[in-house]
Protein backbone atom coordinates (compact mmCIF):
# COMPACT_ATOMS: atom_id res chain seq x y z
CA UNK A 1 0.00 0.00 0.00
CA UNK A 2 1.49 3.37 -1.01
CA UNK A 3 1.43 6.44 1.20
CA UNK A 4 -1.12 8.01 -1.08
CA UNK A 5 -3.34 4.92 -0.92
CA UNK A 6 -3.11 4.88 2.85
CA UNK A 7 -4.19 8.50 3.13
CA UNK A 8 -7.03 7.88 0.71
CA UNK A 9 -8.12 4.94 2.84
CA UNK A 10 -8.06 7.11 5.95
CA UNK A 11 -10.19 9.73 4.26
CA UNK A 12 -12.68 7.04 3.31
CA UNK A 13 -12.53 5.57 6.85
CA UNK A 14 -11.58 2.13 5.54
CA UNK A 15 -10.44 -0.14 8.41
CA UNK A 16 -8.10 -2.08 6.12
CA UNK A 17 -5.57 0.79 6.34
CA UNK A 18 -5.07 0.09 10.06
CA UNK A 19 -2.66 -2.76 9.37
CA UNK A 20 -0.57 -0.55 7.11
CA UNK A 21 -0.50 2.28 9.64
CA UNK A 22 0.53 -0.16 12.34
CA UNK A 23 3.38 -1.51 10.23
CA UNK A 24 4.69 1.86 9.10
CA UNK A 25 4.21 4.00 12.19
CA UNK A 26 3.42 1.62 15.06
CA UNK A 27 6.88 1.39 16.63
CA UNK A 28 7.49 5.10 16.43
CA UNK A 29 4.12 6.09 17.87
CA UNK A 30 4.44 3.48 20.61
CA UNK A 31 7.91 4.71 21.60
CA UNK A 32 6.91 8.38 21.65
CA UNK A 33 3.94 7.43 23.81
CA UNK A 34 6.14 5.33 26.09
CA UNK A 35 8.63 8.16 26.52
CA UNK A 36 5.74 10.35 27.71
CA UNK A 37 3.63 7.94 29.79
CA UNK A 38 6.47 5.66 31.02
CA UNK A 39 4.32 2.54 30.91
CA UNK A 40 4.29 -0.07 28.15
CA UNK A 41 0.61 -0.95 28.63
CA UNK A 42 -0.44 2.69 28.48
CA UNK A 43 1.80 3.22 25.45
CA UNK A 44 0.00 0.37 23.67
CA UNK A 45 -3.32 2.00 24.53
CA UNK A 46 -2.12 5.31 23.14
CA UNK A 47 -0.99 3.57 19.96
CA UNK A 48 -4.35 1.88 19.46
CA UNK A 49 -6.27 5.04 20.27
CA UNK A 50 -4.08 7.09 17.93
CA UNK A 51 -4.65 4.82 14.94
CA UNK A 52 -8.39 4.57 15.58
CA UNK A 53 -8.66 8.33 16.00
CA UNK A 54 -6.74 8.81 12.76
CA UNK A 55 -9.18 6.51 10.98
CA UNK A 56 -12.09 8.37 12.51
CA UNK A 57 -10.76 11.80 11.55
CA UNK A 58 -8.97 10.90 8.35
CA UNK A 59 -11.05 13.38 6.37
CA UNK A 60 -9.37 16.19 8.33
CA UNK A 61 -5.95 15.38 6.89
CA UNK A 62 -5.49 17.69 3.93
CA UNK A 63 -1.76 17.36 3.30
CA UNK A 64 -0.84 13.71 2.83
CA UNK A 65 2.85 14.46 3.32
CA UNK A 66 1.98 15.51 6.87
CA UNK A 67 0.58 12.09 7.81
CA UNK A 68 3.46 11.12 10.11
CA UNK A 69 3.51 14.46 11.94
CA UNK A 70 -0.27 14.34 12.24
CA UNK A 71 -0.18 10.86 13.78
CA UNK A 72 2.55 11.92 16.22
CA UNK A 73 0.51 14.92 17.19
CA UNK A 74 -2.55 12.77 17.94
CA UNK A 75 -0.37 10.35 19.90
CA UNK A 76 1.23 13.16 21.92
CA UNK A 77 -2.12 14.64 22.85
CA UNK A 78 -3.47 11.22 23.79
CA UNK A 79 -0.37 10.44 25.86
CA UNK A 80 -0.48 13.78 27.67
CA UNK A 81 -4.18 13.23 28.35
CA UNK A 82 -3.45 9.80 29.73
CA UNK A 83 -0.70 11.27 31.91
CA UNK A 84 -3.17 13.73 33.37
CA UNK A 85 -5.61 10.98 34.23
CA UNK A 86 -2.98 8.68 35.68
CA UNK A 87 -1.19 11.20 37.92
CA UNK A 88 -3.52 10.63 40.84
CA UNK A 89 -3.21 6.87 40.58
CA UNK A 90 0.58 7.09 40.66
CA UNK A 91 0.46 9.36 43.67
CA UNK A 92 -1.47 6.69 45.53
CA UNK A 93 1.63 4.59 45.66
CA UNK A 94 2.17 2.37 42.67
CA UNK A 95 5.86 2.50 41.89
CA UNK A 96 7.32 1.60 38.53
CA UNK A 97 9.15 -1.67 38.28
CA UNK A 98 12.92 -1.35 38.21
CA UNK A 99 15.51 -3.99 37.70
CA UNK A 100 18.16 -4.71 40.31
CA UNK A 101 21.24 -2.55 39.70
CA UNK A 102 23.43 -5.57 40.30
CA UNK A 103 21.90 -7.24 37.29
CA UNK A 104 22.65 -4.43 34.92
CA UNK A 105 25.75 -3.63 32.98
CA UNK A 106 27.16 -0.11 32.64
CA UNK A 107 25.26 0.61 29.48
CA UNK A 108 22.01 -0.45 31.10
CA UNK A 109 22.79 1.68 34.14
CA UNK A 110 23.39 4.69 31.94
CA UNK A 111 20.17 4.09 30.10
CA UNK A 112 18.34 3.60 33.38
CA UNK A 113 19.78 6.87 34.67
CA UNK A 114 18.75 8.59 31.49
CA UNK A 115 15.24 7.15 31.75
CA UNK A 116 15.01 8.33 35.34
CA UNK A 117 16.17 11.80 34.35
CA UNK A 118 13.69 11.91 31.50
CA UNK A 119 10.92 10.59 33.73
CA UNK A 120 11.51 13.35 36.27
CA UNK A 121 10.63 16.06 33.74
CA UNK A 122 7.15 17.59 33.47
CA UNK A 123 5.07 15.72 30.86
CA UNK A 124 5.00 18.48 28.25
CA UNK A 125 8.75 18.98 28.42
CA UNK A 126 9.18 15.22 28.16
CA UNK A 127 6.89 15.23 25.13
CA UNK A 128 8.93 18.01 23.51
CA UNK A 129 12.14 16.04 24.03
CA UNK A 130 10.60 12.81 22.70
CA UNK A 131 9.32 14.53 19.57
CA UNK A 132 12.51 16.48 18.94
CA UNK A 133 15.17 13.92 19.76
CA UNK A 134 13.43 10.61 19.21
CA UNK A 135 10.98 11.38 16.40
CA UNK A 136 13.40 13.90 14.86
CA UNK A 137 10.71 16.51 14.31
CA UNK A 138 12.05 20.02 13.87
CA UNK A 139 11.14 22.75 16.34
CA UNK A 140 8.25 24.03 14.22
CA UNK A 141 6.79 20.55 13.93
CA UNK A 142 7.14 19.98 17.67
CA UNK A 143 5.42 23.31 18.28
CA UNK A 144 2.57 22.27 15.99
CA UNK A 145 2.26 18.91 17.72
CA UNK A 146 2.11 20.51 21.16
CA UNK A 147 -0.04 23.42 20.06
CA UNK A 148 2.42 26.02 21.27
CA UNK A 149 4.97 28.48 19.90
CA UNK A 150 8.46 27.60 18.71
CA UNK A 151 9.85 29.89 21.39
CA UNK A 152 8.08 27.88 24.06
CA UNK A 153 9.36 24.64 22.57
CA UNK A 154 12.91 25.94 22.50
CA UNK A 155 12.59 26.97 26.12
CA UNK A 156 11.12 23.59 27.04
CA UNK A 157 13.95 21.77 25.30
CA UNK A 158 16.58 23.88 26.98
CA UNK A 159 15.01 23.48 30.42
CA UNK A 160 14.63 19.75 29.83
CA UNK A 161 18.24 19.26 28.82
CA UNK A 162 19.46 21.41 31.70
CA UNK A 163 17.47 19.41 34.23
CA UNK A 164 18.49 16.06 32.80
CA UNK A 165 22.09 17.17 32.78
CA UNK A 166 21.87 18.23 36.43
CA UNK A 167 20.17 15.03 37.49
CA UNK A 168 22.67 12.81 35.72
CA UNK A 169 25.54 14.74 37.24
CA UNK A 170 24.01 14.67 40.73
CA UNK A 171 23.27 10.96 40.36
CA UNK A 172 26.94 10.20 39.84
CA UNK A 173 26.41 8.44 36.55
CA UNK A 174 29.56 9.77 35.01
CA UNK A 175 29.33 7.67 31.93
CA UNK A 176 25.81 8.77 31.25
CA UNK A 177 25.63 10.61 27.99
CA UNK A 178 24.55 14.06 29.06
CA UNK A 179 26.40 14.20 32.35
CA UNK A 180 29.68 13.12 30.79
CA UNK A 181 29.22 15.63 28.02
CA UNK A 182 28.79 18.45 30.46
CA UNK A 183 31.90 17.48 32.37
CA UNK A 184 33.99 17.82 29.24
CA UNK A 185 32.75 21.08 27.75
Amino acid at each position, binding site marked *: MTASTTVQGLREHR*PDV*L*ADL*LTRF*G*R*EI*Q*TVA*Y*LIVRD*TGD*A*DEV*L*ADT*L*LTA*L*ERGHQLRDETALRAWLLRIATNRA*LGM*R*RRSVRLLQLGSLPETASPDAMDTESL*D*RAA*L*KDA*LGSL*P*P*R*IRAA*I*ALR*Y*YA*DLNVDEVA*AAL*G*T*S*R*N*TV*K*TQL*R*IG*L*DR*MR*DQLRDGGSEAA*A*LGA*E*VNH*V
Partner: protein
Amino acid sequence: MSDPILTREERRLRDALHAEEDVLPLGLVPEDLVRRWGKRRRTRMVRRVQLVVVLALVAVVASGAAWSIVALHGQPLAVSSASIAGGVSVTPSPVTGPGMSSGQATLSLTQPESATSSFGVGCSWSPTGHVVGLAIGKQVIGNDYPFIRWSLTPGPKYEIELVEPDQTSFIGAAGNYASQAAADGHTGSITFTNLVLNSGDPSTAPRRSGTFSWTCEQAASLGNPAPSLPSLGVDEEGVPALWIIENGVPVRAAFTSCPVELTTPAGSFAERCATSNWWEPLALLKSALAVPPGASLAFAIDGWTITSAQVVASLSTSTPGSVDNPLQDLHAVLGNGAVPFSTPATGSWYVHFTLEAATDAGSTLDAEYSDWITIA
Protein backbone atom coordinates in the same frame (compact mmCIF):
# COMPACT_ATOMS: atom_id res chain seq x y z
CA MET B 1 19.30 9.78 10.41
CA SER B 2 21.94 12.43 10.85
CA ASP B 3 20.76 15.88 11.76
CA PRO B 4 23.63 18.39 11.41
CA ILE B 5 21.73 20.89 13.54
CA LEU B 6 22.06 18.77 16.66
CA THR B 7 24.99 19.13 19.00
CA ARG B 8 27.01 16.10 20.01
CA GLU B 9 25.19 16.04 23.32
CA GLU B 10 21.81 16.10 21.59
CA ARG B 11 22.85 13.34 19.21
CA ARG B 12 23.81 11.13 22.14
CA LEU B 13 20.45 11.78 23.75
CA ARG B 14 18.75 10.90 20.49
CA ASP B 15 20.69 7.64 20.22
CA ALA B 16 19.75 6.74 23.78
CA LEU B 17 16.08 7.42 23.12
CA HIS B 18 16.17 5.35 19.96
CA ALA B 19 17.55 2.47 22.01
CA GLU B 20 14.29 2.49 23.97
CA GLU B 21 12.50 1.40 20.81
CA ASP B 22 14.46 -1.85 20.73
CA VAL B 23 13.22 -3.05 24.11
CA LEU B 24 9.54 -2.28 23.61
CA PRO B 25 7.42 -5.20 22.48
CA LEU B 26 4.81 -4.28 19.87
CA GLY B 27 1.88 -6.24 21.25
CA LEU B 28 -0.80 -4.74 19.09
CA VAL B 29 -2.00 -6.69 16.03
CA PRO B 30 -4.19 -5.45 13.18
CA GLU B 31 -7.04 -7.78 14.15
CA ASP B 32 -7.27 -6.09 17.56
CA LEU B 33 -7.52 -2.71 15.91
CA VAL B 34 -10.26 -3.75 13.51
CA ARG B 35 -12.24 -5.27 16.39
CA ARG B 36 -11.86 -2.07 18.44
CA TRP B 37 -12.89 0.00 15.44
CA GLY B 38 -16.18 -1.85 15.16
CA LYS B 39 -16.82 -1.49 18.88
CA ARG B 40 -16.01 2.22 18.80
CA ARG B 41 -18.41 2.89 15.94
CA ARG B 42 -21.25 1.13 17.76
CA THR B 43 -20.53 3.12 20.95
CA ARG B 44 -20.48 6.41 19.04
CA MET B 45 -23.91 5.75 17.55
CA VAL B 46 -25.41 5.09 20.97
CA ARG B 47 -23.81 8.27 22.36
CA ARG B 48 -25.17 10.38 19.53
CA VAL B 49 -28.69 9.28 20.34
CA GLN B 50 -28.10 10.08 24.02
CA LEU B 51 -26.63 13.49 23.14
CA VAL B 52 -29.69 14.51 21.15
CA VAL B 53 -31.89 13.77 24.16
CA VAL B 54 -29.60 15.69 26.55
CA LEU B 55 -29.33 18.72 24.25
CA ALA B 56 -33.08 18.94 24.02
CA LEU B 57 -33.33 19.01 27.83
CA VAL B 58 -30.52 21.60 28.20
CA ALA B 59 -32.11 23.90 25.64
CA VAL B 60 -35.28 24.01 27.69
CA VAL B 61 -33.46 24.68 31.01
CA ALA B 62 -30.96 27.28 29.79
CA SER B 63 -33.10 29.30 27.45
CA GLY B 64 -33.35 32.27 29.85
CA ALA B 65 -29.67 32.89 30.59
CA ALA B 66 -27.32 34.92 28.38
CA TRP B 67 -24.00 36.75 28.38
CA SER B 68 -24.08 40.52 28.43
CA ILE B 69 -21.65 42.37 26.22
CA VAL B 70 -20.37 45.91 26.21
CA ALA B 71 -18.36 47.35 23.32
CA LEU B 72 -15.05 48.88 24.37
CA HIS B 73 -14.48 52.52 23.48
CA GLY B 74 -16.22 51.99 20.19
CA GLN B 75 -13.85 49.19 19.27
CA PRO B 76 -15.40 46.23 17.48
CA LEU B 77 -14.16 44.08 20.25
CA ALA B 78 -14.39 41.54 22.95
CA VAL B 79 -16.78 39.27 24.44
CA SER B 80 -20.15 38.62 22.93
CA SER B 81 -23.21 36.64 23.57
CA ALA B 82 -24.31 33.07 23.77
CA SER B 83 -26.48 30.88 25.87
CA ILE B 84 -25.03 29.97 29.19
CA ALA B 85 -26.05 27.83 32.08
CA GLY B 86 -25.60 29.23 35.55
CA GLY B 87 -25.79 33.03 35.63
CA VAL B 88 -22.70 34.67 34.17
CA SER B 89 -21.97 38.34 33.62
CA VAL B 90 -19.11 39.86 31.64
CA THR B 91 -17.49 43.24 32.31
CA PRO B 92 -14.84 44.25 29.76
CA SER B 93 -12.08 46.73 30.60
CA PRO B 94 -10.34 49.29 28.33
CA VAL B 95 -8.37 48.43 25.26
CA THR B 96 -4.60 48.16 25.66
CA GLY B 97 -1.76 48.55 23.21
CA PRO B 98 -1.38 50.42 19.93
CA GLY B 99 -3.68 49.04 17.29
CA MET B 100 -4.65 46.19 19.51
CA SER B 101 -8.08 44.93 20.18
CA SER B 102 -7.96 43.48 23.61
CA GLY B 103 -9.70 43.67 26.90
CA GLN B 104 -10.48 42.01 30.13
CA ALA B 105 -13.59 40.01 30.74
CA THR B 106 -14.64 39.12 34.24
CA LEU B 107 -17.04 36.29 34.66
CA SER B 108 -19.05 35.68 37.79
CA LEU B 109 -20.53 32.28 38.26
CA THR B 110 -23.38 31.87 40.68
CA GLN B 111 -24.20 28.22 40.24
CA PRO B 112 -23.41 25.66 41.37
CA GLU B 113 -21.01 27.64 43.56
CA SER B 114 -19.72 31.19 43.54
CA ALA B 115 -16.51 31.74 41.65
CA THR B 116 -14.90 34.52 39.67
CA SER B 117 -12.65 34.35 36.66
CA SER B 118 -10.87 37.01 34.72
CA PHE B 119 -9.73 36.49 31.18
CA GLY B 120 -7.59 38.60 28.95
CA VAL B 121 -8.88 38.28 25.42
CA GLY B 122 -7.58 40.06 22.41
CA CYS B 123 -5.53 40.33 19.31
CA SER B 124 -1.88 41.03 18.86
CA TRP B 125 0.81 40.71 16.25
CA SER B 126 2.82 37.79 15.09
CA PRO B 127 5.83 37.96 12.79
CA THR B 128 4.04 36.03 10.10
CA GLY B 129 0.45 37.06 10.28
CA HIS B 130 -0.05 40.33 12.12
CA VAL B 131 -2.83 39.12 14.32
CA VAL B 132 -3.46 36.16 16.52
CA GLY B 133 -5.70 35.67 19.46
CA LEU B 134 -4.36 35.34 22.93
CA ALA B 135 -6.08 34.67 26.17
CA ILE B 136 -4.78 33.72 29.55
CA GLY B 137 -7.25 33.50 32.36
CA LYS B 138 -7.03 33.13 36.09
CA GLN B 139 -9.69 31.27 37.95
CA VAL B 140 -10.24 31.77 41.66
CA ILE B 141 -12.02 29.00 43.49
CA GLY B 142 -11.48 29.02 47.22
CA ASN B 143 -7.76 28.63 47.70
CA ASP B 144 -7.15 27.21 44.25
CA TYR B 145 -5.73 29.37 41.50
CA PRO B 146 -5.59 27.28 38.38
CA PHE B 147 -5.06 29.07 35.12
CA ILE B 148 -6.98 28.63 31.96
CA ARG B 149 -4.83 29.15 28.94
CA TRP B 150 -6.17 29.47 25.44
CA SER B 151 -3.61 29.21 22.78
CA LEU B 152 -3.71 29.30 19.02
CA THR B 153 -3.32 25.94 17.37
CA PRO B 154 -2.85 25.24 13.69
CA GLY B 155 -6.10 25.22 11.88
CA PRO B 156 -6.46 28.02 12.91
CA LYS B 157 -8.20 27.30 16.16
CA TYR B 158 -7.74 27.90 19.84
CA GLU B 159 -6.88 25.25 22.33
CA ILE B 160 -8.09 25.39 25.90
CA GLU B 161 -5.79 24.13 28.60
CA LEU B 162 -6.18 24.11 32.34
CA VAL B 163 -2.80 24.49 33.93
CA GLU B 164 -1.20 25.08 37.29
CA PRO B 165 0.04 28.60 38.02
CA ASP B 166 3.53 27.58 36.92
CA GLN B 167 1.91 26.83 33.55
CA THR B 168 3.67 23.52 33.21
CA SER B 169 1.30 20.90 34.60
CA PHE B 170 -2.25 20.17 33.77
CA ILE B 171 -5.18 19.96 36.10
CA GLY B 172 -8.77 19.36 35.35
CA ALA B 173 -10.11 18.56 31.95
CA ALA B 174 -11.05 20.87 29.16
CA GLY B 175 -14.66 20.51 28.17
CA ASN B 176 -15.96 20.29 24.69
CA TYR B 177 -15.13 23.32 22.66
CA ALA B 178 -15.09 24.69 19.17
CA SER B 179 -13.16 27.72 18.07
CA GLN B 180 -12.20 29.95 15.23
CA ALA B 181 -9.15 32.18 15.24
CA ALA B 182 -9.47 35.90 14.80
CA ALA B 183 -7.56 37.53 11.96
CA ASP B 184 -7.25 41.14 10.86
CA GLY B 185 -10.70 42.64 10.63
CA HIS B 186 -12.40 39.36 11.40
CA THR B 187 -14.02 37.79 14.37
CA GLY B 188 -12.66 34.92 16.39
CA SER B 189 -14.53 32.90 18.93
CA ILE B 190 -14.27 30.17 21.47
CA THR B 191 -17.37 28.24 22.36
CA PHE B 192 -17.08 25.79 25.19
CA THR B 193 -19.39 23.57 27.13
CA ASN B 194 -19.03 21.62 30.32
CA LEU B 195 -15.61 23.09 31.09
CA VAL B 196 -14.63 21.83 34.55
CA LEU B 197 -12.60 24.49 36.27
CA ASN B 198 -10.96 22.62 39.09
CA SER B 199 -9.87 19.14 39.89
CA GLY B 200 -12.21 18.66 42.82
CA ASP B 201 -15.43 16.77 43.14
CA PRO B 202 -17.00 16.81 39.68
CA SER B 203 -20.44 17.05 41.21
CA THR B 204 -19.65 20.43 42.79
CA ALA B 205 -16.94 21.77 40.48
CA PRO B 206 -18.03 24.87 38.57
CA ARG B 207 -18.80 24.11 35.00
CA ARG B 208 -19.15 26.69 32.38
CA SER B 209 -20.62 26.96 28.96
CA GLY B 210 -20.63 29.91 26.66
CA THR B 211 -18.99 31.78 23.85
CA PHE B 212 -16.32 34.42 23.73
CA SER B 213 -16.04 36.22 20.46
CA TRP B 214 -14.04 39.27 19.47
CA THR B 215 -12.89 41.10 16.42
CA CYS B 216 -9.34 42.06 15.61
CA GLU B 217 -9.08 45.49 14.11
CA GLN B 218 -6.92 45.94 11.06
CA ALA B 219 -3.44 46.79 12.25
CA ALA B 220 -1.89 49.63 10.24
CA SER B 221 1.59 48.69 11.35
CA LEU B 222 3.22 45.96 13.29
CA GLY B 223 3.61 48.01 16.43
CA ASN B 224 6.16 50.38 17.90
CA PRO B 225 9.65 50.08 16.42
CA ALA B 226 12.55 50.52 18.77
CA PRO B 227 13.72 54.03 19.69
CA SER B 228 16.82 55.49 18.05
CA LEU B 229 19.86 53.50 19.12
CA PRO B 230 23.64 53.87 18.64
CA SER B 231 25.13 53.20 15.24
CA LEU B 232 26.04 49.58 15.88
CA GLY B 233 22.83 48.27 14.38
CA VAL B 234 24.06 44.98 13.01
CA ASP B 235 27.03 42.71 13.61
CA GLU B 236 29.46 41.47 10.95
CA GLU B 237 26.97 38.83 9.82
CA GLY B 238 24.19 41.37 9.44
CA VAL B 239 22.37 40.15 12.53
CA PRO B 240 20.66 43.07 14.31
CA ALA B 241 22.27 44.06 17.60
CA LEU B 242 20.30 43.92 20.81
CA TRP B 243 20.90 46.99 22.97
CA ILE B 244 20.45 46.97 26.71
CA ILE B 245 18.83 50.19 27.87
CA GLU B 246 19.44 51.48 31.40
CA ASN B 247 17.11 54.22 32.63
CA GLY B 248 16.19 55.05 29.03
CA VAL B 249 19.78 55.20 27.75
CA PRO B 250 21.31 52.53 25.49
CA VAL B 251 24.42 51.37 27.36
CA ARG B 252 25.70 48.18 25.80
CA ALA B 253 25.11 45.79 22.89
CA ALA B 254 24.51 42.26 24.14
CA PHE B 255 26.43 39.23 22.94
CA THR B 256 24.71 37.65 19.92
CA SER B 257 24.16 34.05 20.89
CA CYS B 258 22.66 31.23 18.87
CA PRO B 259 20.63 29.97 17.12
CA VAL B 260 19.87 32.89 14.84
CA GLU B 261 17.41 32.95 11.97
CA LEU B 262 17.15 36.20 10.06
CA THR B 263 14.89 36.52 7.05
CA THR B 264 14.66 39.72 5.02
CA PRO B 265 13.21 40.46 1.58
CA ALA B 266 16.82 40.39 0.33
CA GLY B 267 17.71 36.99 1.72
CA SER B 268 18.15 34.96 4.85
CA PHE B 269 20.84 34.04 7.35
CA ALA B 270 20.84 31.20 9.85
CA GLU B 271 23.37 30.08 12.41
CA ARG B 272 23.13 27.02 14.61
CA CYS B 273 24.70 26.36 17.98
CA ALA B 274 27.87 24.47 18.65
CA THR B 275 26.72 24.12 22.25
CA SER B 276 23.42 24.40 24.04
CA ASN B 277 25.11 26.04 27.04
CA TRP B 278 24.24 29.66 26.39
CA TRP B 279 26.35 30.99 29.23
CA GLU B 280 29.68 29.63 27.94
CA PRO B 281 30.53 32.49 25.54
CA LEU B 282 29.98 35.00 28.34
CA ALA B 283 33.14 33.73 30.02
CA LEU B 284 35.02 35.44 27.18
CA LEU B 285 33.69 38.84 28.12
CA LYS B 286 36.25 41.03 29.86
CA SER B 287 33.80 42.98 31.93
CA ALA B 288 30.23 42.96 33.06
CA LEU B 289 27.69 45.70 32.57
CA ALA B 290 27.51 47.32 36.02
CA VAL B 291 24.03 48.45 36.97
CA PRO B 292 22.98 50.02 40.29
CA PRO B 293 20.13 48.37 42.22
CA GLY B 294 16.75 49.76 41.28
CA ALA B 295 17.80 50.82 37.78
CA SER B 296 15.20 50.50 35.07
CA LEU B 297 16.28 47.97 32.43
CA ALA B 298 14.95 47.30 28.95
CA PHE B 299 16.18 46.01 25.63
CA ALA B 300 15.54 46.95 22.01
CA ILE B 301 16.69 46.26 18.46
CA ASP B 302 16.93 49.29 16.21
CA GLY B 303 14.11 49.39 13.68
CA TRP B 304 12.52 46.18 14.86
CA THR B 305 9.39 45.38 16.83
CA ILE B 306 9.83 42.67 19.42
CA THR B 307 6.93 40.27 19.04
CA SER B 308 7.83 37.62 21.57
CA ALA B 309 10.51 37.44 24.22
CA GLN B 310 11.71 35.61 27.25
CA VAL B 311 14.48 36.88 29.52
CA VAL B 312 16.06 34.75 32.22
CA ALA B 313 19.02 35.26 34.55
CA SER B 314 21.38 32.82 36.25
CA LEU B 315 23.87 33.69 38.95
CA SER B 316 27.30 33.57 37.34
CA THR B 317 28.79 32.30 40.58
CA SER B 318 26.60 29.20 40.73
CA THR B 319 26.30 26.54 38.06
CA PRO B 320 25.08 28.78 35.25
CA GLY B 321 21.90 27.67 33.60
CA SER B 322 20.91 25.41 36.45
CA VAL B 323 18.50 27.94 37.95
CA ASP B 324 16.86 30.36 35.57
CA ASN B 325 15.15 33.32 37.17
CA PRO B 326 12.53 34.72 34.84
CA LEU B 327 12.85 38.44 34.20
CA GLN B 328 10.32 38.67 31.41
CA ASP B 329 7.54 36.32 30.31
CA LEU B 330 6.92 35.18 26.80
CA HIS B 331 3.64 36.81 26.03
CA ALA B 332 3.64 40.28 27.54
CA VAL B 333 5.71 42.26 25.08
CA LEU B 334 3.83 42.26 21.81
CA GLY B 335 3.69 45.60 20.07
CA ASN B 336 6.53 47.18 22.03
CA GLY B 337 9.72 48.70 20.70
CA ALA B 338 11.75 48.78 23.89
CA VAL B 339 10.91 45.88 26.16
CA PRO B 340 11.39 46.34 29.90
CA PHE B 341 12.58 43.46 32.02
CA SER B 342 13.03 43.07 35.75
CA THR B 343 16.28 44.08 37.36
CA PRO B 344 17.84 41.05 39.06
CA ALA B 345 18.74 41.13 42.74
CA THR B 346 22.18 42.25 43.85
CA GLY B 347 24.87 40.00 42.40
CA SER B 348 26.62 38.91 39.24
CA TRP B 349 24.24 37.53 36.64
CA TYR B 350 24.34 35.89 33.26
CA VAL B 351 21.24 37.09 31.42
CA HIS B 352 19.76 35.35 28.40
CA PHE B 353 17.31 36.76 25.85
CA THR B 354 15.21 34.51 23.58
CA LEU B 355 13.15 36.56 21.20
CA GLU B 356 11.29 36.97 17.97
CA ALA B 357 11.08 40.30 16.17
CA ALA B 358 9.66 41.57 12.92
CA THR B 359 9.38 44.66 10.74
CA ASP B 360 6.50 46.00 8.70
CA ALA B 361 8.59 45.33 5.58
CA GLY B 362 8.26 41.61 6.26
CA SER B 363 11.63 40.83 7.83
CA THR B 364 11.65 38.38 10.70
CA LEU B 365 14.25 37.61 13.33
CA ASP B 366 14.38 34.63 15.65
CA ALA B 367 17.46 34.94 17.82
CA GLU B 368 19.07 34.56 21.20
CA TYR B 369 21.33 37.04 22.94
CA SER B 370 23.09 37.07 26.30
CA ASP B 371 25.11 39.36 28.52
CA TRP B 372 26.87 39.56 31.87
CA ILE B 373 25.29 42.08 34.22
CA THR B 374 26.29 42.90 37.77
CA ILE B 375 23.92 44.62 40.12
CA ALA B 376 25.91 46.48 42.77
